[in-house]
């Protein structure tokens, strides 16, 4: 990752939420590029660099909402984690749901982390910051 631009893929169908996430990520000052897609299919296209995303490089982190149009968030997660290459990318589930079923299913599909969006913006902000530093600074990824 050294010297390489840090890329995040944000999969979020709620544009307002996406906007809030991106505002926060910008404040990290470490991320060079955030790509926002609004449905599961687009996420997969991006990850496999298909269609309009042909030639795009792999992201260093995926922020994934669970409830997505076209292809469901869990299915996207499952596809990533079943792919020998893609599974190395940390996937952080970022959703409003605190349902046990969702949490369980996410971990069943090898989510790297599960974050529930707090209503309080300060907390939301702190959470995203910590998450960013953890995954993008402290965490050592395989080459």
């Amino acid at each position: 990752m050294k010297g390489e631009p840090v890329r995040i893929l944000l999969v979020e169908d709620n544009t307002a939420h996406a906007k809030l996430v991106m505002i926060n990520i910008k404040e990290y000052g470490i991320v060079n590029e955030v790509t926002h897609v609004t449905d599961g299919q687009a996420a997969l296209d991006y990850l496999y660099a298909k269609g309009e995303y042909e030639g795009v490089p792999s992201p260093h982190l995926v922020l994934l909402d669970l409830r997505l149009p076209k292809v469901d968030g869990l299915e996207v997660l499952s596809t990533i984690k079943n792919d020998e290459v893609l599974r190395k990318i940390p996937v952080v589930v970022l959703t409003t749901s605190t349902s046990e079923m969702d949490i369980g299913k996410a971990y069943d599909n090898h989510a790297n982390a599960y974050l529930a969006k707090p209503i309080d913006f300060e907390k939301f902000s702190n959470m995203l910051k910590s998450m960013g530093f953890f995954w993008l600074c402290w965490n050592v990824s395989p080459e």
Partner: protein
Amino acid sequence: MDKIKPDFSPPEYLRDIENRHEFDASALNFGHLFDFRETKKILERFCHANAVSCFFINPDGRPIKSLTGVLKFNDDFVLKPPEDAEATLGEKNFFSVICSGNPNVSYGVTTISVQGKILAYVAVGPVVLNNHPEGERFDVSLCDDKCGSENIPAKITQAEFSSICSNLSLIAEQMSLFAEQKMLYSSLFVKERKNEAVLRGVKERLSRSQEAARVGSVEVYLDNDVLWGSDGFFKLIGVTPDGGSFINYTAFCSLIIPEDRQRHNEVINKATASLGQLQDVFRIRRADNNEERYLLSAGKIVSGPDGKAKKIVAIIQDITERKKIGLQLENTSRLLNSTLNAIPDIIGIFDDNFHVIDTNIAGRVLFGNTADGKNTKRIRCYESSGMVQKCTNCIVEQVYQSGEPANLEVFDKRLNCWVDKRAYPVFDKGGNLTNVIEHIRDISDRKTTEEERENLISELRDKNAELERFNYTVSHDLKSPLVTITGFSSVIEAEIKDGNYEEIADFAKEIKLASQRMASFLDDLLEISRIGRLTNPSEAIDLNLMVEEVKHMLMGVLAEKSIRVCVETSLPVVMADKSRFMEVFLNLIDNAAKYIGTPENGGEIKIGSFVKDGKTVCYVKDNGIGINREAHKRIFHLFNQIDQTAKGSGVGLSIVKRIVEVHGGSIWVESEGVAGKGTAFYFTVPVAQNEGETK
């Protein structure tokens, strides 16, 4: 019970015997005579009156016995009748003889004979015959055998002696008759005794065997009330007849207990009238200990030479023990039958050929009437209900094959209900499987309850799932705008603080949108909760008219996208809540218009109905973008909008589903998920019953 005293009066039967035996004179001898005391007395009286001695003489001429007791005979005394004895005295059966020792002494002698055979002589005398010179009168001197002794014989005239002899002759004649009669009886008694000995042996053996078998034989003479019984018979009734093996029949009948007496008489009378067989079981009280016993009589009526009923010949058996066991069995059996009949379930007892041997009252429905406990027709269980062969999975057969109990829950077509069938093996002492008992219980109620429970559970599960989804959605969808609102408020705050105002309007707009979304979401929630609660009374609705109305209402949307709406078939009249049912069409048509996309030949919505499996199905088809197969179920879930970017909150279809279900119908979707091929919604409708008339 009063104890009876049998009357043992002597019989008159002996008369019968006379005709049955031949008389044998050769067996007679003189000794028989002395039994006749009466005769002897007559003779003694005679001697005394006439002052003569009288004695018996053997046919060989030796004196036997003096009847008067005064005569003494010499050892050489022999009385020999002269060859012309009869001529000598000129009297029939009477003659004068001369004593061998003294030619002057004579005796008047007559014979006692039976059928020509001389048994003895009866002599009177001695007399000394003096030829009296005066013609007819001659003296007869009575003297003893020692003639010439000091005894002076009495003198009697010839005429007197003749009279004495004549009388003696009459007496002798009478004695002959007595002798003959006595001989006769004597000989009979000898014979009888011989026969009796044989008979006694036979009788004893018979008696022993009868006793062992608790059997007796009996003969009853109908004309004279005489009852002949064997020893065994008397033992059975507890009577010891003195001097004979009989009592009278009336006495016997008095032993029969009153309750059974009349029937016994009827049996006898019937048999007598028909000269036929008789059989009866009756109770007596034994004469000796008053004990009640059951007797079985079996016999027949014997007719006399005149063809009329003469006597009853019967064998009597004491069957008390057997009867008691029988009664016990009967009680047990009655108890068992009552128990079986008290059971409302069907119970059948089978043999190995599937014959129903017995059933309880409930079982008659299935196995026919075998109420008498015997299926004499030997009908197989399945035949009685008109079937040609055994039921499949016949559990009776299974038990016969395995020897183990079997059970099966099945819908019985014959009974037209669900039943729980259980079959159990019955083994004999040797462990052989002899019968199978089948127990059939109507479990319709249980089945119905189970079904209802299953339905309720499934309904509840659906409701629960829906509630869970609802909770999930509510928590998610309500939270989501809140995150947006608080988030952007904070952002705006920070921007203002930093003095950046460019994006504030933009951020404020996000807040506004989120609030609007939340408001509409809350509206939908209210709407959803209203369905199911609010129901207007059902009315007949002509769907053709309703569709026209909906088309009119959606005119704007349809015109905007130039969508054609085509009613393909005539629609039925339904019984439904009008305003609610309108929402079904409104939502479906609106939905179709919403997702019509851009088909080549322009958007088209087709509406129609058909009947399938007895249900009327309506459909709304479009040629829009279609719905992915995996989403088919999900689309009816609450707030399950396929595409967040499209307008609406996702409650439309779940509202439609609810309305259809509230009206007792179901709804499903068919779509390949391919744009242009569109989507088809099908739903069943409650057709008005008199639709034909209203239309």
